[in-house]
């Protein structure tokens, strides 16, 4: 699975995810990626893309959970990411990337590794594989 989230100069947020699915998946099995609110979600506060064990990402409506937590609890992006990855999902389930309306980014996984990269207009930059 691959994904990207961005905030542009006009303050618009968008999220995109694309996948080949799961090795050896059964005929007709659909994963989290095309389920809006699970593997992919964006509103005017935050944009989120997920990767990992699709069944768990779907059962927790994960991308929307991060956005809702941020909106209703009025928390920071990182606090919402920590809540989703550390409290809602179980170890080994999934990883997420997100960008908020202020241009903050957050990338976190509880699977041990996630190929990831991020940068912004102030020159902050992060590229990584393992946690």
């Amino acid at each position, binding site marked *: 699975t691959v994904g990207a989230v961005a905030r542009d100069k006009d303050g618009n947020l968008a999220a995109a995810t694309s996948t080949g699915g799961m090795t050896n998946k059964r005929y007709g099995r659909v994963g989290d990626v095309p389920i809006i609110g699970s593997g992919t979600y964006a509103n005017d506060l935050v944009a989120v893309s997920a990767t990992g064990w699709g069944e768990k990402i779907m059962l927790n409506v994960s991308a929307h959970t991060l956005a809702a937590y941020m909106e209703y609890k009025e928390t920071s992006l990182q606090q919402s990411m920590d809540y989703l990855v550390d409290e809602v999902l179980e170890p080994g389930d999934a990883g997420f990337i997100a960008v908020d309306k202020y241009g903050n980014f957050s*990338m976190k996984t509880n699977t041990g590794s996630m190929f990831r990269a991020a940068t912004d207009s102030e020159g902050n930059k992060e590229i990584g594989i393992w946690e």
Partner: protein
Amino acid sequence: KEWAIALHGGAGYVSKDMPEDRKQAYMESLEEALAIGSDILANGGSALDAIERTVNYLEDNELFNAGKGAVFTSEGKNELDAAIMDGSTLNAGAITGVTTVKNPISLARKVMTESKHVFFATDGAETFADQVDVERVDPSYFYTERRYQSLQRAQEQEKEESSNLLPETNEEKAWKYG
């Protein structure tokens, strides 16, 4: 901040003793994907264009499980899914189970901008692709020997593993990641 972008190439269980040349290949690919999206944003491009082009690059890079380099289903096929969502309008487009669309995220964006629906599946998504301007390929385009070998190993493992459905070890878990 004026703009920001983040991308991923999949989460899972990747051993830390990955060969150095392979690790280098992944790091260079992540750098290149990041440069594509950040250049678009720095030049005033839209978030939608930045994420579509970034994901297109990752779909075309066979290191990643999307587009070329996708994993195989139990029937030995490559069935691709994608979704895109515009935070400023809460509009979205999603597709599942396509086999002839070179860049699935571009088709998902067409669903968002050129249809009144949000989600198209399998044959319906293929029919919609016939009606819009997206690049089509023969399903064999997505084949990579590495992923096909993975399918073989997964099916061998399936024969051996105990009846319980939940994977236990990290190695067993590794198969479940998209």
